């Protein structure tokens, strides 16, 4: 960390010390959410806007300094919180780190490591049928190996299969829609927001309630894709390539990683079923089965690293950079998110009561969670609106109990939040982490990709949004 950065942090801290007195009203109050001022959510908004705007406006600055930006917003909120709420703030920070952030990164890291050890090799010809089959398989896999894992597995073979095709941009866009987003809606392994829900008490198989929504959305998109691809395939006049003897049979290398993938699924399932009591880590009570799950996930990743040859990962262009970047960014997001979550959980007693009063129907939750998930990362957005819903229905009730009550009494709200967070992640490049990774890999391979607004106007607004309107009418009105 550069000296300049340390100076900057110190400057911010000294500037913020007087501000912290404004927080002090709640120093002796056990409920942080009821006493936090509205402006305590500014660092969270700043963090999310940084993620949304810096890559567009100053991509080089962001590329080199995103860690410092993340640390900046974390410091801006953590210092006043610690000064004002002392032990309570320490507890909340440790709680969000140990109960949310660490398991979240461990799950993403293990899925990424294991799926990065599986390599699809062989000669695939990018016909409309083959391409639609790849997209369908990827959509089905995404819920079990994560949207990132399925995207890592399939994007390079997909691009190689279509290297001879002229119109490739729309293919990658549909890949983002289906495999990097909508496909991940069925299990907590699929998309980060659903895992955060799982950590807060949503049962593993409950997310299968999104199956009808997913089938409709994916079915329409796959049919549209097939129609587009058939049209362009004919227009391009692609002829069958002569067999020059270089045709390789399709094969899956590193398929033993599927065993480790099954291990990950098993470990997450186990943590949702087993009840082995609690253990205290730094004063934070964590379920023993959750700690065991995290240990097993790390073990699966380590086994994958040990058993997978280095050359296979190199052929997959596997690098730690994407997961490192997620870990750095998300520590800032999770820190900055604390006041927002606490205020929302306080329900109408908190400063964000106007949101809780305004968002009252499932259709509101679907669209507001969705629209915000399009432009902000969908994981914190999901948590924010989960907190809004439980704050609205069950203010002051312990979170895990409130989640159970929400599922029992008002499940449509949770369906709306989950579907909004997962589906709308596809609307922009910044909605979900794998989107920009897929875009990056496609551009590196020479596939021209639309700009941020080009993607939205040409594809999301014209293709995705009508599908979401249909889903709204079928399920939420």
């Amino acid at each position: 960390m550069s000296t300049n950065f340390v100076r900057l942090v110190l400057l911010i801290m000294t500037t913020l010390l007087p501000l912290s007195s404004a927080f002090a009203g709640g120093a002796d109050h056990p409920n942080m959410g009821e006493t936090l001022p509205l402006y305590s959510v500014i660092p969270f908004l700043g963090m999310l806007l940084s993620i949304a705007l810096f890559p567009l406006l100053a991509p080089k600055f962001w590329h080199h300094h995103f860690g410092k930006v993340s640390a900046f917003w974390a410091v801006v909120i953590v210092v006043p919180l610690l000064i004002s709420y002392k032990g309570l703030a320490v507890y909340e920070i440790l709680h969000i780190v140990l109960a949310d952030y660490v398991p979240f990164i461990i799950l993403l890291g293990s899925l990424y490591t294991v799926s990065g050890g599986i390599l699809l090799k062989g000669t695939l010809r990018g016909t409309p049928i083959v391409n639609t089959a790849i997209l369908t398989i990827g959509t089905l896999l995404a819920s079990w190996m994560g949207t990132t894992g399925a995207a890592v597995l399939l994007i390079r073979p997909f691009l190689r299969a279509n290297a001879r095709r002229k119109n490739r941009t729309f293919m990658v866009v549909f890949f983002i829609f289906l495999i990097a987003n909508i496909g991940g809606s069925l299990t907590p392994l699929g998309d980060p927001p659903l895992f955060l829900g799982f950590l807060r008490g949503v049962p593993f198989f409950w997310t299968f309630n999104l199956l009808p929504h997913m089938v409709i959305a994916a079915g329409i998109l796959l049919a549209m894709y097939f129609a587009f691809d058939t049209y362009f395939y004919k227009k391009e006049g692609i002829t069958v390539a002569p067999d020059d003897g270089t045709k390789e049979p399709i094969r899956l290398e590193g398929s033993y990683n599927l065993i480790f993938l099954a291990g990950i699924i098993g470990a997450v399932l186990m943590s949702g079923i087993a009840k082995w009591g609690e253990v205290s880590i730094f004063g934070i009570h964590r379920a023993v089965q959750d700690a065991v799950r995290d240990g097993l996930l790390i073990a699966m990743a380590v086994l994958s690293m040990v058993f997978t040859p280095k050359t296979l990962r190199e052929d997959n262009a596997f690098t730690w950079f994407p997961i490192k970047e997620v870990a750095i960014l998300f520590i800032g997001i999770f820190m900055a998110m604390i006041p927002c979550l606490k205020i929302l959980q306080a329900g109408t007693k908190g400063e964000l009561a106007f949101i809780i009063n305004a968002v009252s129907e499932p259709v509101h939750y679907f669209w507001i969670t969705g629209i915000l998930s399009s432009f902000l990362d969908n994981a914190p957005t999901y948590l924010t609106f989960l907190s809004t819903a439980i704050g609205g229905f069950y203010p002051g009730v312990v979170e895990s109990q409130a989640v159970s009550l929400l599922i029992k009494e008002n499940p449509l709200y949770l369906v709306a939040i989950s579907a909004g967070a997962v589906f709308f992640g596809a609307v922009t490049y910044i909605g979900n982490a794998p989107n920009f990774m897929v875009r990056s890999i496609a551009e590196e391979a020479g596939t021209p990709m639309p700009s941020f607004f080009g993607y939205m106007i040409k594809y999301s607004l014209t293709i995705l949004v009508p599908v979401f309107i249909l889903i709204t009418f079928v399920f939420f009105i």
Partner: protein
Amino acid sequence: MKIEKILFPTKFRELAFNSLESLLVLKEVGIKEVVLYYVIPREDVGFVPYGGYLKEEEERLREEARIRFEDWQSALSKQGIKSKIIVEVGDPVPNILSVAEKEQVNLIVVGRKKRKGPELSFVGSHTLQLITRSKFPTLVSKYMVQFEYNGEKVTRVNDDIFKKPLLASDWSEPSARALDLLKSLNGIIEKAFVCHIIGVKISKGLDKSELYRIEKESKERLEDYCTRLKSEGIVAEPHLGAGRTPLEIIRISREIEASMIIMGTTGKDRLHEIFMGSTSHRVAEMSELPTLLVP
């Protein structure tokens, strides 16, 4: 084994061109082409968090590399050596190995890293991976190095690296191939040295008579190596050492004022490398001399 085509990957660090210049003498022994290679690390242009791909940055880096390489090319063409520029985005180590394979080069030349920290190694993690995995002879070039010698900081310029090479042999097949490579350098070598070290692992626990037998056999083998070099017209001198192998090789190289060290390397796997180390890699890491490792 003859060096006709060299792969010269570079990060354009200081003195990289001087390092390339020090190889031009190989023209006298048949070098025909140099492949100038630059890998733009994927992380520098791709995976911009929430952003995508820095296409313009990639173009800029490509152009910068092209301009620098074209400048180097003129120095090569003045010597009548052909050259080729390759710039790719990727992961340095696998990309270098794959280009070496594709271009069927005879030698890979990699730079040293700056010595810092307690480890004081001249070999960075990329170079270590490369010399561990390379199927091609790999020269760790160290054009200008600073090191401690007799308690003093010394700066050394390795610009005439083929003048007095030291071949450190353990009588393995890679060592024999290193000898062949050394023979192909006839014409640019002033004097060659051949050494063998009776390592601690071998000498420990042996009775004197057995030690004498090994010593005698080693001397005979050293003479045999020297004779083979002399038959190619290279003046050669044998040296037998004993003790910790890497340190002893370095000691001898200093005593005889060698200009480089040539060794065979067995390309041990990663696990072995971590726990046991490899003599050739240790020498490459610790010696201030350019080190040519022959697999």
